[in-house]
């Protein structure tokens, strides 16, 4: 077994790298991809410069660790591109919309009927029947102001 690895030499890294990348597809976790890339890099370098296997391992560890900041930099340009940005964010979807108060806001808090349910709202004291605009959301709590 060990003989086989030894006989393969530098090829081990390339094989290892591709196996990691394939595993990434099967079990997505992203870091396996970077480990695979690091392995490929180590393989290419050891083709050019003869190195002991221990050094190759250390290089692999360094590359793998370095992959994280590199990946963060690459990932930054598209932080949260989503076809529906308000998925699971029902209150954020209400931001900026206008509604009519059914019950007055007293002492800074009240309720407002939106769609099929009742939302807790906060804002300046306002009589019922006023049109208000959602200006801020914090979880399920909406802050409104007179529209």
């Amino acid at each position, binding site marked *: 077994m060990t003989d086989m690895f030894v006989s393969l030499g530098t090829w081990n890294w390339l094989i290892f790298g591709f196996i990691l990348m394939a595993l990434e597809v099967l079990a997505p976790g992203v870091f396996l991809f970077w480990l695979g890339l690091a392995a490929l890099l180590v393989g290419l370098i050891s083709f050019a410069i003869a190195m002991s296997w*221990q050094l190759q391992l250390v290089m692999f560890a360094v590359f793998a660790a370095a992959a994280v900041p590199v990946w963060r930099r690459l990932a930054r340009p598209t932080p949260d591109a989503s076809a529906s940005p308000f998925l*699971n964010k029902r209150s954020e979807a209400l931001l900026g919309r206008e509604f009519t108060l059914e019950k007055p806001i007293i002492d800074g808090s009240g309720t407002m009927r939106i769609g*099929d*349910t009742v939302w807790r709202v906060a804002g300046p004291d306002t009589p019922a029947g006023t049109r208000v605009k959602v200006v801020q959301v914090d979880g399920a709590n909406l802050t409104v102001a007179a529209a």
Partner: protein
Amino acid sequence: MSGFDIFAIVLVLLVIVTLVAGVKTVPQGYDWTIERFGKYTQTLSPGLNLIVPYFDRVGRKINMMEQVIDIPEQEVITKDNATVTVDGVAFFQVFDAAKASYEVSNLQQAIIVLTMTNIRSVMGSMDLDQVLSHRDEINERLLRVVDAAVSPWGLKVNRIEIKDIVPPADLVEAMGRQMKAERVKRADILQAEGQRQSEILRAEGAKQGQILQAEGRREAAFRDAEARERSAEAEAKATQMVSEAIAKGDVAALNYFIADKYIKAFGQLADSPNQKVIMLPVEAMSMLGSLAGIGEIAKATFGDGAAFAAGAARRGSVPTTGSAPPAVPPRQG
């Protein structure tokens, strides 16, 4: 194996373990809380996230999707002391993963118990009839109360629905009988009302008919009277005209009329199929004879046109030869 060999192998393992610990992929619909040495620090939203390995740990994985929980069956005593069995469903969604993780322990159980107690207090303040017919109002009140109560837990209850309200079997049976009795009562009243109405209508029809009949009789009597008046008037006029004619001295004409009528009447009498024997009073014959005498007197009185009168008398006497004179002149009109 040298120390460097082992170091290199361990280093690689360490890096891999560190990466696994530091890179977190949160699936859509979930929020993960991060604890640094056991204390909450931040919430990871869906997508790729990095945390500091060894310091940070994933705490709770909170489902941020709207969830439905069954509110188990329970017995509720209404204001009028009826025991009903009630169950329902509640829909809620977590808006703040941190509060849902650490402000409450056993979130679902808390919601269930809270909803159950509120169902009891809301329905306990209503009569059975109200409970059965005001389901929307119950849902609305429950929603407001429970939603306000779960607010500190970072949740929002979107909907609470009472699924089934089951009164005890004997009560259901009584309700059925009550409804049936009510319908029967309504049917009876309607029938009685219909009868009353029809009888009134019938009586009114009879009344109207009698009135109309009486009116008809009255009208007929009026017309009869009028007819009699008219006929009397006509007779009077005829008599007047005859007497005027007589006054003008045409007595023979009078004789002619009387004789003419007499003959016609007699002829009719003779034509009658079952009256072949005619008895005539003697006086009638003599009266007929006297007519000529009347004519003579009139001629003597008025003098004027005597020749015509005589001629007329002669002509007037013609029927007397063949037939008897009438007892009374035929009525006119």
